[in-house]
């Protein structure tokens, strides 16, 4: 009797131990594979390793590891990256925003206009930029949510309306030179040691987005609204207000990115910056965000932005024509969505 129990015990113990061992063995790879940012992390590390190795072997032909190139790379990543953070937050809550391309241009232009031409104080000018961005985001959200129209159509229309109305108001193609106090410029686009300040700002903003998404109840609401709006409603979440907030946040992130660009160039233009919105969507998809909402991570967006700029850098360094970037983005968007779908099905 005792022996039988002990044998049973030992059996269950051993099978438990076996299961635990198997679980432990599988856990790391499973976690990497099933994490939204798993594929992009592997891709990023592989690409980075390849670049570093090739750069170390033939430093004359492929000057990847030079100080100039690395600092250029770190300056380039935040450009699309900050826009993608906002687009990603919105995508997680189940909507799209293509109008960021015009917010990126119009909001900082308004800031430069208010500061340089209207002579307002810089903080007031920045607030004006954010108000314009927030207003555009609010309009996107109100039209999309009240009429039940797909958000990509609303924001596609908004992209073109805003892009053309701004030059129309200020008198067609113009550029305004924007010369803020040196301290402001130093804080925004200077450098800390060898690291450009924009990159640190990008990491900081990503951290804020991470806190919002993973450590704040609003993040839960974003995921819930994007994952299953009906279930979210039954759980007492105000989906309408959540999505409206995501629309506004998305526009504000685009305005921040635009302010960085204008400060760096000392110039604000009404000429459209082509396809920022599409690159931002591409970054999110490459970064493992689900197109249907409810799935994604901030680290994925950061790595997606890094991968895009790495590829851009490789294309420039090896003197390939620029259309390879177009092709890469096209293939990666489709491949990214396919991979995301496969991972989702496996869940």
């Amino acid at each position, binding site marked *: 009797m005792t022996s039988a129990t002990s044998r049973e015990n030992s059996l269950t113990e051993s099978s438990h131990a076996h299961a635990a061992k198997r679980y432990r063995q599988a856990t790391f790879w499973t976690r990497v594979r099933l994490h939204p940012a798993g594929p992009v992390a592997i891709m990023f590390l592989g690409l980075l390793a390849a670049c570093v190795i090739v750069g170390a072997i033939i430093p004359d032909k492929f000057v990847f590891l030079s100080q100039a190139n690395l600092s250029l790379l770190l300056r380039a990543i935040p450009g699309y990256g900050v826009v993608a953070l906002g687009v990603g937050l919105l995508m997680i809550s189940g909507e799209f925003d293509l109008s960021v391309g015009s917010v990126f241009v119009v909001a900082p232009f308004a800031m430069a206009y208010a500061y340089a031409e209207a002579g307002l104080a810089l903080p007031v000018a920045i607030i004006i930029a954010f108000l314009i961005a927030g207003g555009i985001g609010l309009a996107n959200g109100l039209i999309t949510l009240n009429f039940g129209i797909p958000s990509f159509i609303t924001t596609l229309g908004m992209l073109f309306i805003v892009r053309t109305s701004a030059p129309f108001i200020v008198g067609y193609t113009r550029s305004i030179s924007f010369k803020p106090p040196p301290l402001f410029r130093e804080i925004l686009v200077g450098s800390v040691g060898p690291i450009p300040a924009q990159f640190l700002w990008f990491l900081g903003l990503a951290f804020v987005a991470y806190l919002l998404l993973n450590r704040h109840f609003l993040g839960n609401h974003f995921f819930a609204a994007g994952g299953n709006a009906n279930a979210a409603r039954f759980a007492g979440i105000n989906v309408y207000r959540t999505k409206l907030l995501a629309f506004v946040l998305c526009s504000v992130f685009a305005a921040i990115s635009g302010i960085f660009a204008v400060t760096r160039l000392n110039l604000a233009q009404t000429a459209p910056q082509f396809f920022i919105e599409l690159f931002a969507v591409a970054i999110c998809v490459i970064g493992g965000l689900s197109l249907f909402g409810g799935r994604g991570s901030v680290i994925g967006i950061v790595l997606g932005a890094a991968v895009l700029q790495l590829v851009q850098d490789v294309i420039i360094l090896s003197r390939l024509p620029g*259309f390879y970037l*177009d092709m890469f983005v096209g293939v990666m968007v*489709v491949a990214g969505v396919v991979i995301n779908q496969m991972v989702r099905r496996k869940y």
Partner: protein
Amino acid sequence: MTTAPPTSAELAAMRRPAAAHPLVAWARTYQATNIAVIFLALLAIVVGWSLIAPDQLRFATAGNFAILSQQIPVTAIAAIGVGILMISGEFDISIAGTFTLVPFIIAITYGTFGWALPLALLAGLLVAIAIGMLNGFVVVSLGIPSFIATLGTMFLLRGVVRFVSINPKTNQPDNIAFFPPEAFKAALSGNLFGPVYAQVIWLGVVALIGYLLLNRHRYGNHVFATGGNRSAAIAVGVPANTVKYVAFVICAATAGFAGLLQATRINQIEPSYTLSGFELKVIAAVVAGGVSLFGGRGAILGMVLGAALLEIVDNLLVLLNAPATLFQGILGAIIIVAVILNTVVARRGRR
């Protein structure tokens, strides 16, 4: 004594106002009525304005009509393909690439490789079919939303166009000249009489084929069924996936044909046209024409009138010396307003 409860037909009759004239009733259900009314109103205003003040607005002149009769068909033919695809419930924003690449292939094979013209046209057709099949594969077989899938192929096609058109000396895409035989040019874009050009005939042909396909052929029923309610369509035996594949191919073929019309008219192909927002214009034309963005509703006449409406607005802006970028803003507004109206109309229809 109890009265029998009203049947559903009687209830419907009670809810509606008194039975209208059959023509009015038909117009109410016809899916291009709104755009027809708007189009005719705009046309009346513009023509009236230009007749009253010909110095202010030179719209109703032979020269201007000649321009319109060459421009409207190009947009309208592409709109018919996109519209049929949209009725089947999908979307294509890669058509600017198709519009450029197909005539490009024809020009290269005919001009540079020296192939016979029919062979070059066949090559162009095959490329269009391949693009349509690729889009269909990514959307239907891989199950990706068509907006994102065709965004991917848009980038891809843009890359291909720049790849084949690159000038090794300047490292920039080059315009390619296209000089087909005179008879071919005359057939595709020659002057028929007065301000009317051959493109109008081609538009008529494509619209007629589209109408027969959509409203007089089994395939059309399948398209409406697939776009209206996909699972119901599959349940009654409609091959929904095949329907969508064919719709993607039709869309690519019409975009390629529109590109060919444009190329024979101006005798060259501009790779930069892939960046011009042509897809936006065509989508605006289709939704303004009353085609539902969600599929299942639409009419060929609506697509053609939507395209004509947009081209006339574009033309007006040129005549009034407005800045060219303003047109894109108007396009954006037209898209949003048209989709809102279509959604409201569809909701009312369902009630």
